[in-house]
């Protein structure tokens, strides 16, 4: 595919991510922070986010698996997850954390498990989307074009 078309698809894809609420303004901020001194900033941050989130989700699964659930611990994990996702701009993931925290306070294991499920889903979705986005970027760069900036 030629560069122009790639760039157009990139823009379309990006817009859809924003429109569908997968990403929010924070992600654009991240993109703004990318410059010559930091060319792969977004990728690095997002990768770190993936690592962090997966670890947290595993921890959460394990914690909720316990017979005596340590809700404080669960709450701490969710808090971390919320922080990470909001720093990256993964809006839907962040939004799932909010009810998670309230059910944690209620010490409702069932509800917690449901929330965990939802978060996992959202996380996987956004991970997928972001990975697709990065692939598109790489294709554009490989084709010799510049990555278009979103307004």
């Amino acid at each position, binding site marked *: 595919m030629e560069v122009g078309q790639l760039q157009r698809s990139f823009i379309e894809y990006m817009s859809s991510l924003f429109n569908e609420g997968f990403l929010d*303004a*924070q992600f654009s*901020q*991240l993109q*703004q*922070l990318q*410059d010559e*001194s*930091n060319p792969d*900033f977004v990728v*690095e*941050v997002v990768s*770190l*986010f993936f690592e*962090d989130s997966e670890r947290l989700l595993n921890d959460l699964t394990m914690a909720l698996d316990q017979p005596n659930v340590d809700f*404080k611990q669960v*709450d*701490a994990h969710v*808090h*971390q997850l*919320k*922080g*990470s996702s*909001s*720093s*990256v*701009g993964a809006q839907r993931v962040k939004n799932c954390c909010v009810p998670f925290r309230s059910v944690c306070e209620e010490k409702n294991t069932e509800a917690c498990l449901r929330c965990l499920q939802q978060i996992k889903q959202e996380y996987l979705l956004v991970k997928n989307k972001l990975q697709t986005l990065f692939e598109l970027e790489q294709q554009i760069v490989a084709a010799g074009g510049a990555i278009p900036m979103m307004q």
Partner: protein
Amino acid sequence: MGSLLRMNRLLSSIVDSCNCIIDPQLPADDLLMKYQYISDFFIALAYFSIPVELIYFVKKSAVFPYRWVLVQFGAFIVLCGATHLINLWTFNMHTRNVAIVMTTAKVLTALVSCITALMLVHIIPDLLSVKTRELFLKKKAAQLDREMGIIRTQEETGRHVRMLTHEIRSTLDRHTILKTTLVELGRTLALEECALWMPTRTGVELQLSYTLRHQNPVGLTVPIQLPVINQVFSTNRAVQISPNSPVAKLRPTGKYMPGEVVAVRVPLLHLSNFQINDWPELSTKRYALMVLMLPSDSARQWHVHELELVEVVADQVAVALSHAAILEESMRARDLLMEQNVALDLARREAEMAVRARNDFLAVMNHEMRTPMHAIIALSSLLQETDLTPEQRLMVETILKSSNLLATLINDVLDLSRLEDGSLQLDIVTFNLHALFGEVLNLIKPVASVKKLFVTLSLSADLPEYVIGDEQRLMQILLNIVGNAVKFSKEGSVSISAFAAKSDSLRDPRAPEFFAVASENHFYLRVQVKDTGIGINPQDIPNLFSKFTQSQALASTNSGGTGLGLAICKRFVNLMEGHIWIESEGLGKGSTAIFIIKLGIPGRSNESKLPFVAKLPANHMQMTFQGLKVLVMDDNGVSRMVTKGLLAHLGCDVTTVGSRDECLRVVTQEHKVVFMDVSMPGIDCYEVAVLIHERFGKRHGRPLIVALTGNTDRVTKENCMRVGMDGVILKPVSVDKMRSVLSELLEHGVVLE
């Protein structure tokens, strides 16, 4: 006397002896011979006595100047005597010796007498002249005596004058001066009566004002045009006048001879007579008359020195009177000034009190009025957000509109009063002029489009982009003017044009006193807002900028507004050293509002002390943050990385730590700012702040601490403030936000949100 007696005895013995010798032939010749003997004898006696007497008396008197003459005389006389004596022996036959002696004696005598005769020629005139000199000296002495008498009299007079003057001048009270004059004159000159006639206010009469003897003058008047008075007034000498003239008729007429009367004029000088460069010319026509009368039946006459005394006194009196007059005037002026001062002081204090009362009132009312206003506006807008029926919504909207109007009115009134006070000062900043116009346009476009009005803006190319001035107030002026244009136009267009004014366009024919001079650092902005609205009646134009006036047409359209807008605009424009006016051709013909204000040009003047608040692109700001050492504490890896990326993007030198202990280990004085995520649960980040405070002590040395938090509820904020954090920021932070936070931190040392 003893010698005389001896002489006599000698002579008698000689006579006796002679009698013996010449005895025989004495009949008729004897008698003759006897008489000759006796005569010669007595002659010789006399001759010998005279020199003795002369010598004796001259010795007694010390002053006789011609002693040697006496010697000569003495010699002459002695020799004569000797001759006569020796003659006694020559009557009879005598020896040759006797003849020789006789001859010698005669020769000597002849010699001496001739010499004496010659001497007398010289001496007698001298002696005679002595006598004349004596006479001369006597005459001279008499003359000197006379002159001495005169001088003494004059000195007496002088003393009197001095004393009189002293008495007169020792007081500045007019009455005392005049009274003293009369008394002293009366005493010095031993007068019977002394009177002073002063001219009346009308100037046609002389009134008797003061007399010496009669304590209460009866108030006699005489017309001023009498010949005798004119005579006296025409000269500054004392003039002798007839005792029968009206001014001198002060005594009960009797059978006695009235004493002589003298009158003299006393000039009454005014302050205005003393010109700076001239002597006080007696251009004054006002004289008083002083009349002095010698005692009757005294046969005294006026002496010259007395007249002179009178003249001198009259002059002194004039001077003293003028001094007294001047003093009176200056006292009156001073009293008047004091009164005025008191009145002014009172007025000033009253004005100050009024101003203070007004300010107090305004301050109180400001607060008291604004608080409920805020409540009304806030609650009404909140109410608007809720579910309302259409009628309710309409009501709430009306409430909101009215309360907004009221709030504007309050602000306007306050602004205006501060403007009038002179206490309002412009906030001078550097701002983007083009952007300002753009904003005004944006604000007015919605309203204009509702009314289907076209709004156009044209900025000339020579307008600088950035200017120095009061941005807010210029905006206020523009909004007011443009708002009025829109408000009063039902259709058509509103055009705004702005350009840098050249000197000829700075002159408004209506304001010839307004001179605008552009300079290196300033220029004059001219803005014209033209509308096709209802126009203004030419009669109303002068009142447009006065407070609270609204013409009939305006009031009837219920256009709202306080009537203060234009007045405030005018004040602002004046503060900006400019001028504002409105032109209109008449009702229905639209109007044009024009104002010119002075704005500064940045960059040309060295106004580095002004804070530069322009919105420059990011890379400018990065330079200020370059190398700024900061520390980021966050336990969330992703969040930490994002914050680090953010700060690195702004050019900072970022160190990251993941825990409290690590933070305390790593933090040094070099870190200017510490960004701390305080949403970490279970960890007391506030303690870290406290410990940092303790470690680094004084303000300027220690790093500034900013809290990053996901929720800015009150509790979090309070906790942050409690531990002395310098700011709280809500996550997520945008690049611009972080930039402004950093610049605020570095400028003020604190971030308030």
